[in-house]
Structures are given as C-alpha cells and as structure tokens.
C-alpha cells in the first residue's frame, strides 16, 4: 500500500472546455507549488489557506542545452483543499486547465515531473474510502471499480504493447537479470565465481543498456511508443488512391516517426497532428500493396483493419463504379464513423456525388448515419484536402471524435517506468565509477528490472533465484 502523492486527470479527456488534474497526498501542495506561479511570477501555494482558488500559470522546465529554462504551458485556476476536508481526506490540489488534449497532457506531465506519481486505476476512490470519506455502503462498488479498472488497464496495456516493443523490453530485462544473477551467484558462492575485471565489462553493458532505454524514452516523449491519437484507417478498393492520400497527409504535416526499428514502421502506423489534433493513420498495407490487381477487398480484411478505428476514411474512385462490394464493406463497418471521400474529383464532381448518394439511399446504409460526411477530393492534385481537415477538426471539437484516454495514461505510465529504469542504470554506473563493491550494483539493477517489468505487467517474484539456478552452476 503506497501512501505517496498521486496525480491523474480527473475529468474525461474529451474536448470539454476545462480539464481538471487532481493531486492527492502529503506532498500535493509542494508538488503543485513547484509548477504554479502567479501573475507576479511568485510561488505561493505553500502559504495559502485551505479551500481557496488561485489564478496563475503552470510552468514546465524545458530541458536541452546547458541551463534549464522554464516555459509557461497554460493559464490555470488552482484549488487547494487541505486534509481532512477533501475528496480523499488527504491534501488535495486541483488544477483547472484548458481542455485541449496536448495542454492537459503537458500539465499532467509537469505535475509528475514535480514529484507526484501517476495514480493507479481507482486509487483516489480507494484512498477516499480507506480514509473514511466514502460511505460503507459504497465499499462494494469501490472494490468492483478497482477490480474492473485494473483489468481494463491490464488488457489495455497488453493491447497497446505491440510485439516488437514488448520483445525489446523483455530483452532488456533478460540482460539485466542475467547480470544480476551473475553477481549474486558470485556473492553466494565466491569460490566458484570470480568478479575480477567484471565491473569494467558491466560498465560497457550498462552503456549499451542506457542507450537503448534512452532511445525508448525519447520515442515515448514523442508519443510514438504507444499510438495516442484518433485511430484512423483509410479503406477502399485497390487503385483508388489510398497511398497517395496517405503520403499527401504525411507529407504536409509533420509525421512523428522514430528511427527505432519496430516502434513505428513495423506496425504500419503513422502518428501525425492535423490542426493540433493527434491522429494515428493506419496504412492498410496488405490492401495497398497487393500484387494481384484482380484481388478484391475482402470483407474480413476491411473489418480487421477497421476494428480498432475511431474514424474510417473510405475512398472511392469517382470515375469507377460504386458497387455492391463497396456497400458490403460499409455495411460491415457500420458502427464506425466514416468520411466518404470521392477521389479524382476533377471529373464531373456533382454528378458522381449524386449518383453515390442515390446508391446509398437505395441500400439501407444511409439510415445508420455512420457516414458523417461525403467530400470530394483529388489526392493527386492536392485538392479538397483542406476541406477534409476542416471536417475532422469540426468533428473533434464537437466531441464526436475522441482519443483513447487509456492509451495516453498507459503511455505516461510507461514513460514513468522508463525514466526510473534509466535512473537506476545511471546509479549502477555511478557505483562502478566510484569503485563501490559489486553487491551494490545488483540493488540498482534489480530496481531497473522491476521498473521495466511494470511496463509489460510482470511481477518480479522469484525471477532472480530462478535465473541464478538455471544459468549458474552453484555449490557443493
């Protein structure tokens, strides 16, 4: 049971006007005070009364370069509620910031950076209960909530962790465990294992491990570790211009791509910001790259690609027939929001649109309202793309498109764990350089191992003992 200071976003993270970030625990006020300044640039929160509201700015230290600078991220209202008269009966600070995704995320990051820990699912409620703030009759509900949200978090984390990233973490853990087990074997059985010269070789290994962890950490900074954004899939029959559209969108906007093999390329997804809103574009590779020109879009394949999508861009070649096959796909994904794009619209635009509308009306599809808009574009000539962006922006701000909260939270958790891993590895290096005895290395190595394990949901249990026995020949 941890009683440290926790923080999380208390409001749903769609585009409401205001988001609230809640901090609870002994250090809540101190944490908030570190990142909050008044108009007069003063840190005041440590000295304010309970149940007061303060106007000012959230600042975030920007790293890079020699000196650390602080940057204003948002204009906020901060409420301070001291124990015991607060939601959790601990000291609570709530930061009301502007509702934008990016802003909310950054404020939360600043709070974590200032010393709070990301709350576990249901943790505020749990604390409220344990501190007697919630009625006994609600105990059942609290337990259910913890149970359900922890299940959801686990399944979400599993879903989000794509194969390659998982492999990477597992390989890092394996290396760390192996080194620890070697040190421990030598400590337990000094007559069988000799550590002469080992610190030097470990130092080299730590350098490599640090490089890998740092790279992962950087990619998580850019949000590319997990795809946090509106999942968008481009669908359509072969040769309707899907890849041209994709490249066009990517070329115009800054795509977030990392050079870490696998985190981006292997999953065939690109994250990009369209008018400040994060999108994850799935490049339906199988469909695009088909070698057989007569291959039809399989209904199954479309379903698979669209399964997780928040938004489908369905591309139709307006010079070709809009036929039963298209209708079949649209029927299949009728629970998704779809923007129908008529490509190659330089040809008799109006006429085509009308023809397709008619076809839709004739089928039962239009009744399901899943096609939110029909737009004409020309990917080749870069026409109508602004119109598409207008529509997505509008949909987002009307709240009919949302990003997945859990992904953001998961990503944040991973980042926290990676930072801790890095810290622990730096400690090991420091111990080596200071000539500390070898048994000190394994303390930090095991911390690194544990932190990495949190990313892939692995407990430590008896891993070390198992590794010692299976890898090193011990004893009498």
């Amino acid at each position: 049971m941890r009683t440290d200071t926790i923080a999380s976003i208390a409001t749903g993270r769609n585009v409401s006007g205001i988001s609230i970030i809640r901090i609870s625990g002994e250090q809540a006020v101190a944490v908030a005070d570190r990142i909050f300044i008044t108009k007069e640039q003063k840190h005041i929160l440590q000295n304010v009364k309970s149940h007061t509201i303060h106007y000012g700015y959230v600042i975030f230290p920007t790293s890079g370069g020699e000196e650390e600078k602080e940057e204003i991220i948002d204009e906020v209202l901060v409420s301070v509620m001291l124990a015991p008269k607060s939601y959790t009966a601990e000291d609570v600070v709530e930061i009301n910031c502007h509702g934008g995704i990016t802003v909310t995320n950054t404020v939360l990051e600043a709070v974590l950076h200032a010393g709070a820990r990301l709350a576990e699912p249901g943790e505020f409620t749990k604390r409220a209960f344990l501190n007697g703030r919630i009625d006994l009759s609600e105990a059942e509900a609290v337990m259910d909530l913890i149970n359900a949200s922890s299940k959801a978090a686990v399944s979400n984390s599993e879903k989000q962790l794509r194969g390659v990233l998982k492999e990477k973490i597992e390989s890092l853990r394996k290396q760390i465990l192996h080194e620890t087990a070697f040190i421990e074997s030598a400590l337990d059985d000094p007559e069988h294992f000799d550590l002469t010269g080992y610190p030097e070789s470990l130092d080299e290994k730590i350098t490599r491990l640090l490089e890998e962890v740092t790279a992962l950490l950087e990619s998580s900074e850019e949000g590319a570790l997990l795809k946090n954004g509106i999942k968008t899939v481009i669908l359509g029959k072969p040769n309707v211009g899907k890849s041209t559209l994709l490249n066009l969108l990517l070329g115009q906007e800054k795509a977030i791509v990392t050079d870490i093999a696998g985190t981006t390329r292997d999953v065939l997804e690109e994250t990009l910001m369209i008018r400040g809103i994060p999108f994850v574009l799935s490049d339906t590779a199988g469909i695009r790259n088909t070698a057989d020109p007569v291959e039809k879009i399989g209904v199954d394949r479309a379903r698979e690609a669209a399964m997780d999508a928040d938004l489908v861009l369905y591309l139709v070649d307006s010079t070709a027939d809009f036929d039963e096959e298209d209708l079949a796909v649209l029927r299949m994904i009728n629970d998704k929001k779809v923007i129908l794009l008529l490509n190659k619209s330089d040809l008799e635009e109006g006429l085509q649109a009308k023809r397709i509308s008619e076809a839709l009306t004739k089928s039962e599809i239009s009744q399901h309202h899943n096609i939110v808009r029909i737009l004409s574009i020309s990917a080749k000539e870069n026409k109508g793309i602004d119109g598409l962006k207008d529509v997505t922006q509008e949909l987002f701000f009307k709240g009919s498109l949302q990003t997945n909260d859990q992904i953001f939270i998961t990503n944040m958790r991973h980042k926290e764990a990676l930072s801790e891993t890095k810290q622990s590895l730096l400690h090991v290096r420091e111990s080596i350089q200071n000539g500390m005895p070898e048994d000190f290395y394994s303390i930090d190595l095991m911390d690194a191992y544990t932190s990495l394990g949190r990313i892939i949901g692995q407990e430590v249990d008896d891993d070390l003992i198992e590794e010692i026995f299976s890898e090193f020949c011990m004893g009498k």
Partner: protein
Amino acid sequence: MNETEKKLAITNFLKDENNREEDIRQIVDICVVGAGHAGCEAALAGARNGLDTVIFTVSVDSIALMPCNPNVGGSSKGHLVRELDALGGEMGKNIDKTFIQSKMLNSSKGPAVHSLRAQADKQAYTRCMRRVLENQEHLTIKQAEVCELLTTSRTPDEESSATKQIIGLKIASGGVYLCRAVVLATGTYLNARCLCGEMITHTGPNGLMAATHLTQNLIDLGIEVQRFKTGTPARMDKRSLDFSKMEIQKGDDRITPFSFSTDPEGMQTEQAYCYLTYTNEKTHEIIKANLDRSPIYAGIIEGTGPRYCPSIEDKVVKFAEKERHQVFIEPEGLYTNEMYVGGMSSSLPEDVQLKMYRTVPGMENCVIVRNAYAIEYDCIKATQLDHSLGFMKITGLYGAGQINGSSGYEEAAAQGLLAGINAAMYCLDKAPITLDRSDGYLGVLVDDLVTKETREPYRMMTSRSEYRLLLRQDNADLRLREKGYEAGLVTKEQLDYVKEKQRIIESEARRLKETKVGANKKIQDFLLSCDSTPIKTAVSLAELISRPELSYERIAPIDEERPVFVIQNKPRFEIVENPLRKQSSSRSALEERFLDLRFLEKEEAAKAEEASDIEKQILADICRQINITVKYEGYIKRQEKQVESFKKIEHKKIPADLDYSAITNLRLEARQKLDQIRPQSVGQASRISGVSPADISVLLIYLENLKKES
C-alpha cells in the same frame, strides 16, 4: 507445569478411556522431537526459560550430527548463525569452540555480503553440543522414536483458527510424555530412504534408524506432507590422496569469531588446510555413460532435490558446456583421516563412483571410506505454519528445520531456536516472538517458508533478502539482542552493552556529520599525505570518511574533538577451549602435515600483550559500525525508507478466522491462495504468488469495512 497443571494434564489424558495412567513416563512443558541442529537449539531455548524439556533422538550418539559438509556458515548462512547468536542460540558458540579453519567470505566486497564460514571438527562439534545439552538444567535427553502426537480438540477463535491442541506424545515403546508444546525437528529421518545406485536402504543419514511411524500420524492429524531429496558426496582416506596436485586453501590470518560473546584474541589458533582440485572431460564422460544407473535419472527417486546443491550428475547434464567443476577436499576433523569431497555429491553406484572420483587430479588412487548417497525423506508443507513456526491448525505444535522444507545446518538451527522460543512463550502464556523481513535473514527465511510454496529444499541466499544492507552480519547484535532478551535468552548485561554501543555509534555518526573542517594547510597536508585530493571548501568529517581511501580511523589526526569512549557495560567474553591447542603435544607427524602452523610461531610473544584487550575489541567494533554507517549512508537511507513503507503494510493484521469465500470481489485464484496460506498480515498476503496488487486493494477495503462494521 505446576502440580495443579500436571493433575489437569493427567485428567485430560485419561478422558480417552483407551489411555492408561501407567503409560505416562514424564509430565513436562516442552517435547522436542529430534536432536539435530534445530532440535538442540529448540530444546535449549525451552530449558533456558526454566521450562522442563525433553529432547528425543533415535541415537544419543548422533546429537548435533553433521552428516554432510564439515562446516558452519558461508554466504548468508553465516548471517543466520550470527543472528542466532545475538538471539541467544548455541551454534555460534559451539563452532567457535570446535572450528579448525575459518574464513570471512567476500571480504573484498561490500559489508552486507561479508560472511563467515568455519570448517568444523565434526566429532568435536557433536561432543561439545552434547555436553551443553547434558549439563543444561531442566533438560533431559531420551533415546526413542516418537510415533504419535496426542491432541485434544479446541474451539477456534480470533487469535487462532486451530481446532486441535497438543497434550503430549507417544514413543515406540508405548510410553507417553504429557506436555504443552511439541517441536518437530525430525530432519531427514521421516520415512528416510538412502540411495546409492541400485543399493537402497531404508535408513536415515549415516545408516541411522529412520522414523517410520510419525508421518502417518501427521497425515491423520490433517497435516499435508511432501517428499524431498538431498545428497552427500563420498569421504576419502586422506592417505590415498595426492595433495601435491591440488591447490592449498588457507584460512584467514585473523580469525573472526561467530559468537558475539567469544573473546576474539583468545580464539586465534593454528588452522587446518583445505584443498582445491577439478573434474575434467574424463570424469564427465564416465558420468554420462552411467546415467541410466543413477536413481534420479532412472526415475527411482521421487523426492525433489535442491538446485543449488546439485549432484555431480546434475551438474554434468545441466551445465554440459562447462569443461570442469571445482572439487573442494575438506578434512572431517583433525583426528580422523576422512576427507569430504565437496562438489561431487552423487547417487551413482559404488563402482561408478570409484571410477569417476579417480579421474580427478590428486584422487587417482583414492580409497573411499563412505560412499556418496542420495537421501529421500518426508517433510511438511510449511505454508501450514505461521511466523512463530507454529502450526495454524494445532496449537502447541511447532516445526523447525528440514521438516519445514529447508536445507542446511544453519537454516535448521535458526528455525529451531525460533520454534523453541515460541514453544516457550506459548507455555509461559506470552505473545509469540517473530521476526519480519526487515529484522533479519531469519525473518526472510521464515517468511519465505510460510508464504511461498517451496518445491525444493530451501537454502538461504543473500539475494533473497531485499534489505540486506541493513541486515549485515556485523550488526546482528544491534538488530536482535533486544528480541533475544525478550525471549529470555540474553542477559540484561548483554542488552545494556548493545544499547550503549548503539548510542555511541549514533552520536558519533551525528557528530561527524556536523563537524566541518576548512580548507586550511593542516587539512590539505593531511589529505595529501593520505593520497586524497585536497578540498575546495569546508566539508564535514563524514564526507571525508566516505572517500574510499579514508576511514574513521585514518582521519583521527584531524578529528580534534573525537571523544574517548568510556563503556559502562563491558561484555564478558568467553575464552573458548579449542581442541586443536589442547592436544598439540599429542599430534602425530601425519596430523601436523595438514596444519597451517603460522599462528604457533608468533603465538607466545604476541599473545601475552594482546590477550583479551576488551577495550580494543569494542573500539574496533564501534569503528567498523561508524565507517559503514557513514560510507554507505545513501544506500542505507534508501533501504530504511523501503523498510518504512514495508512496515506499514506489514502491520495491517488479518484476523485468523477471516472467511475469504465471502470476499466475492476477489478473483477466484486469489481467494483460493489466500484461504490456503492464510497470511497473518496484508504485507504477507501481497507476497503470495498469484495475488495481484488489485487483490490487495480489495482486501484492504474489505478489512476496513469489517473494522467499521464491528
């Protein structure tokens, strides 16, 4: 028991009409079953609390027998012995009297992993411990096989979910001993079976009688048992070995005692040699070619063996890539020619053993005195015990040592001490004394045994201890004397000394942090003379001590305000009688050949002035503590913080009669595991494999709810 209690005990016993008064042999407080390392400690702990105690053994000649390796201590096991000694146990004192070589392992590594190991003269060890037992007031020794535990039924309550209570035990002759508590310390004797290739004997170690009745009785009482296996290598005739082909292994120049009450000066002595040699390709070929004749690989052995102490067969199969394995040749005693072949335990048949051993350099013409063998035995599932080592289902019944699924003399002795203490506390109507994971290795050992389902004999390892920087062998007295005092095994004098020592260390550490020295010429010159970099600004003395090249002792010239320590409560050291020295005049030439006599040469002159300078010893001890406290402060603080949060959850107790099936929000797997292991605290629950952090949150809320409702 007083007379009234005794009468009551008899009445209770005679309630069952099959029981006869004439069968009652003795009415006592505690019965200890087994006189190995666990049994001896348990019996002494009971008797030293003034409680009448009987210790049962199948052979009085095998009290405190060392049927396997001839040494005490080693990595992490050495910690256990030091802890046992701080708590008032006997093993540390006994080995200090009977060691023939001593070595501080890992002395080049951090203080947390320094670990003492001493080679024992096995016969002397056994004889010495037997004398202690025989001369202990309130303790009697009885040679008999215990075959039945006698119990009566009881009603479970909040304190204990037990439905039965111990009232005594029955031995094979039909004799009955009435008592309040029983400590089971049966070692490897329950249904023991020894295997050497195709030759199988139903005996305990060294051909001693096995105990064949008790297991069934335990099963009848509802106790779950399992079968474990272990093994030992062959013993060779010293005269048949060629030591010129082996490397000599010497003991330390300066011997460190195990016991906090042994006089370190008085125990410096000559030491025996050990030797190192290696297996080779030829050895491995012979083993591989004969695997089908190994009872393990032929599937005859059912018990699970330990992975940390594998037989040579296991090593060759599992680590096929290794070209050679180390073999340590260690004397079994000073006045015997038997040598222990460490690293080559085996259950292969005699002819293969001989062939295999003879491939090892120096052993080409070896003559085997005793064959290597594997031994199988019954033990209990220790998750049926709580942290006092008492059975949760039967009050007054305790388990210690190999019967709990552990291995090793030290693990056994430490558990025996704890079980004995708690049997005594139970008889005295006092609260049990327990250790948690932050108190000591013994706490880790017990917690692992009662919480995790052990599938092989459990050995202590430093990596099992998460707070090992705090649980050092050098501070076991600071950590545990108080508990030993509570347990009635440590004197007020000993406790006062430790408290005083603690106070001095703390106040010195504080003073060193607060005392600053400036960058003046005197300081800089001093630093340069120590090959240490000069300082730029004023620094504290503590900061200087934390430099690797400096220490508390070294900075004395610039520490002008260093106080002179006056110790009020000087401990009394015991001068141990070492069998080595006593018999030096009667040693044969052969015996002299295997001794490291360096000590003898400088002995007489040096000893006279150094002998028992207690002040000096105490000062050295205090210096060591201060150096460690200051040098590793960062890490120590970190672990102290971890311990703090560990304690919080460890102190959330779970009622003994909690009905887990009523907590429907718990996942089924967690419910089953919790119900089976029945943890005493939320902390223990969180360490059960298969119980997730979310389950723990649910449990916490349920307990809180329960508290509020009542």
